[in-house]
């Protein structure tokens, strides 16, 4: 079954590449998606296992593919004359060759794959949400090419990389052999490059190249970590993830490679100062963004840091990671406030939440790790939904600007409703994201500086989401909004994710107890969350002798309150046309309720315009980026320094 999770997308991708017919291709994609979803659920039911493939010489096979990918980077670098890509292709090629020819030829390990509960959580996210996004992409890419008046369809190629991505991600979360993990890591970087550059515009290619070299620095750190581990620990067994986190090795020796691997995770998770590649990735068609932000790519970064958390528990490195992640959470939330483009707000919010997850891994208590896993899940669902909403909106108004979305509630009520729920689910109780943030804040006092960043970032989060949602809702006093029609390929993933927000959110108690608790135990021992009585989540203090209660979150009651507060008024309270009034304009109104004109100077009829606040002068990118990036670089140096100091 594990082979299906990794190889089926590869096979399906190749098949898609061969098929030229729109409908036949759709059937293949939908069938693959359903197979992946069923497969991931079956895997989770069967539970953890280990596996080592035999027969073919897989080690050699993977090594050859590694070289192929790196040589392809070189080719890209030379054709684009992008020397950064060339440099970082060489910094990977040369150490790789050194390792391969001088140290150890195509290293093999047993077990090559270790699938534990954390991997299963990840594969569920990748398979379910990733598949839904692939289905969404079918119709989206059709509309996209239709709008762009392309003569030759490139949808097959697009879907190939999209589906392949899911396979590589599954491999990444299953791999135990660090060398193989590195391979899957590079495949995701490659897929990412191909998808960002898909539209072949100059901007797309430039941004894709930036994503490539930034991630290639991470790949470089990865390969150096492998070499260092192998050289100091002597032996293949040192390159097993399970040995690395099992505590079998001397902490002082392990810390530097772990710090390097965390750096790799930071590049992939687009943490400051690497945020620009993920922002640049916005030029790609929206399904790509949805995939990169929710279930793949960036989640690989936080997965790696979380996976390595036991290896740096109780060290200064752990605190450094907590503070670095928390700083990114704060700085990118501030930047999100100043953004005028919907997708850039989403992008900054993603980076911010990834920073929060990484900070939780750095805080490294049972509570914060549980928060990190919950945040990974809920963020994947909500952000996946929001990107698909952004794509749907874009194909209705052909714009990504928030100001152009003014009054969308009247033009596309259904899309607006779904988007509004998606936005609310990102930052308000009782939704899962807030639940995760609440647990994170209750755990954050261990690293007070991180706690303070959390507080500031949470506040800024409220500001930028409310601002955006407010623009969607701004409507004229008019009744009878016609409901828009959405293609099934749009609406099916949207509704599934919407239901997912509520299903996982309401059922989080039992889900945590029966499944996520085991995943938490893959990272840290002990438990601090209990589900008691009427579905209350009860947090307890870290001391195991006396279980003092830290906080209580009543889940079902709060969802009930949400229904009473918002849903019932929406459904029950009607408004008659006779009850409508124009807005207050000091009596200078022109005409009836559905005009937005007033009598200006000399009774000239003038349309009035309203706009949002964007705080460009205080929180704009130009203002914030220089100092925020500097602080982020200093923090990164400190983080890696924590690994170096231990050796000296």
């Amino acid at each position, binding site marked *: 079954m594990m082979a299906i999770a990794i190889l089926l997308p590869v096979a399906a991708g190749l098949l898609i590449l061969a098929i030229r017919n729109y409908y036949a291709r759709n059937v293949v994609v939908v069938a693959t998606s359903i197979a992946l979803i069923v497969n991931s659920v079956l895997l989770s039911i069967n539970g953890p296992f280990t596996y080592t493939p035999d027969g073919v010489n897989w080690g050699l096979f993977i090594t050859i593919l590694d070289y192929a990918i790196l040589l392809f980077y070189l080719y890209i670098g030379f054709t684009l004359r992008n020397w950064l890509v060339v440099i970082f292709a060489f910094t990977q090629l040369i150490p790789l060759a050194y390792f391969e020819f001088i140290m150890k030829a195509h290293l093999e390990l047993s077990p090559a794959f270790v699938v534990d509960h954390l991997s299963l959580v990840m594969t569920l996210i990748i398979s379910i949400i990733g598949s839904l996004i692939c289905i969404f992409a079918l119709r989206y890419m059709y509309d996209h090419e239709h709008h762009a008046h392309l003569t030759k369809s490139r949808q097959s190629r697009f879907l190939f990389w999209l589906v392949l991505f899911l396979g590589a991600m599954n491999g990444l979360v299953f791999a135990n052999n660090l060398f193989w993990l590195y391979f899957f890591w590079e495949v995701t970087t490659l897929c990412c490059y191909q998808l960002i550059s898909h539209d072949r515009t100059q901007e797309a290619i430039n941004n894709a190249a930036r994503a490539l070299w930034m991630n290639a620095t991470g790949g470089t750190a990865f390969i150096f970590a492998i070499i260092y581990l192998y050289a100091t620990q002597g032996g293949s067994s040192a390159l097993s993830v399970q040995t690395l986190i099992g505590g079998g090795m001397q902490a002082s020796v392990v810390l530097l490679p772990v710090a390097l691997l965390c750096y790799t995770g930071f590049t992939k998770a687009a943490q400051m100062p690497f945020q620009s590649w993920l922002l640049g990735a916005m030029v790609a068609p929206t399904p790509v963004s949805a995939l990169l932000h929710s279930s793949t790519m960036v989640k690989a970064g936080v997965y790696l840091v979380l996976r390595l958390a036991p290896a740096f528990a109780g060290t200064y490195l752990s605190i450094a990671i907590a503070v670095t992640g928390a700083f990114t959470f704060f700085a990118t939330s501030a930047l999100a406030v100043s953004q005028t483009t919907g997708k850039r707000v989403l992008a900054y919010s993603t980076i911010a939440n990834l920073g929060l997850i990484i900070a939780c891994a750095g805080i490294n208590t049972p509570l914060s790790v549980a928060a990190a896993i919950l945040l990974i899940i809920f963020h994947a669902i909500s952000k996946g939904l929001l990107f698909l909403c952004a794509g749907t909106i874009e194909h209705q108004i052909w714009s990504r600007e928030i100001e152009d979305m003014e009054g969308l509630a009247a033009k596309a009520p259904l899309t607006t409703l779904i988007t509004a729920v998606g936005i609310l689910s990102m930052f308000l109780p009782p939704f899962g994201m807030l639940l995760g943030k609440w647990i994170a804040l209750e755990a954050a006092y261990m690293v007070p500086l991180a706690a303070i960043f959390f507080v*500031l970032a949470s506040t800024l989060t409220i500001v930028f989401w409310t601002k955006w949602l407010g623009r969607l809702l701004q409507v004229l006093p008019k009744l009878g909004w016609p409901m828009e029609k959405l293609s099934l390929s749009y609406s099916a993933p949207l509704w599934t994710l919407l239901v997912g927000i509520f299903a996982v959110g309401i059922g989080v108690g039992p889900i945590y107890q029966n499944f996520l608790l085991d995943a938490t135990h893959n990272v840290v021992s002990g438990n601090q969350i209990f589900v008691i009585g009427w579905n209350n989540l009860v947090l307890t203090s870290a001391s195991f002798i006396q279980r*003092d209660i830290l906080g*209580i979150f009543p889940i079902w009651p709060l969802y009930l309150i949400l229904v009473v507060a918002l849903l019932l*008024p929406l459904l029950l309270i009607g408004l008659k046309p006779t009850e409508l009034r124009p807005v*207050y*304009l000091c009596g200078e109104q022109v005409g009836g309720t559905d005009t937005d004109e007033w009598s200006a100077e000399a009774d000239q009829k003038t349309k009035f315009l309203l706009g949002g606040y964007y705080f460009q002068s205080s929180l704009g990118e130009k203002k914030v980026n220089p100092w925020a990036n500097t602080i982020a670089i200093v923090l990164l140096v400190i983080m890696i320094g924590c690994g170096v100091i231990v050796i000296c």
Partner: protein
Amino acid sequence: MWGDRHMLEQFILVIATLVGAPLAGGLLFGIDRKITARLQGRYGPPVIQPFYDFFKLLGKEHIAVSRLQFIWIYGYLVFMVVSLIFLVLKSDILLLVFLLGFAGVSLVLGGFSTKSPYAHFGANRELLQIMAYEPVLLLFAIGIYAQNGSFLISEIFKQDKPLLFSLWPLFLAVLYVLTIKMRKSPFDIATSHHGHQEIVKGVTTEYSGPYFALFHLAEWYEIVLLLGIISLFWANPLWVGILIALVAFLLELLVDNIAARMTARWMVRLSWSIGLLLGVINIAYIYLTKGVS
């Protein structure tokens, strides 16, 4: 903790709060108007004038400018009430702050869901107010955790030593928040109780009749909630805390009458500098002296 007897007590407590809080809140606003009038050399309306106003508003015609308005004003009211219930049930203070945040966001979205310039100004400013007070309240919750090792309000009542002794810098910061939340000068920025606003009634401009009455109702619950939060600083015995809260209330009235309205930008800057500094120093001091409990 989850016994039947306990449940019954809690149920009675919730009902008592639902009924009692608006009575107390309305009365407080009546006192506010009376005292303010006296300070300004006027006679002022009777103390129960807010109730007269409330019922008068309820009897008015249903009119609106957008269907979305109702949803958010109900959201504002319901989440305000729920926050108060969290307080009287002595639940989680951090979650309470988040729920209060939902109430605030609802009011802002209510202003945004009309194409009205005045409501928009008000909503934007209300959002800035949230930006100003939310971090202080969150730090306050963390400060309580730093001191007590728990976010539960019930834990505060178990301590013999009042929070005021260890959290007095945060007390000052929360007083500042009280001024913002009570919409008193110098922070009556998003909407005001006095008719001297350049943005008419700000965020509530487009609410009228029964829906405006709901807004007032929510405000009554809010004032009780805020004074309740202040009284947590001296929870044992609670009457001292309530006394402190009432003194703080009177102090706000005084400040309201001697201060001029400031700009929203000034408010945010002040809050993010002095307000946050007070909270951060307070928490850092506890962390350094007590460590992680």
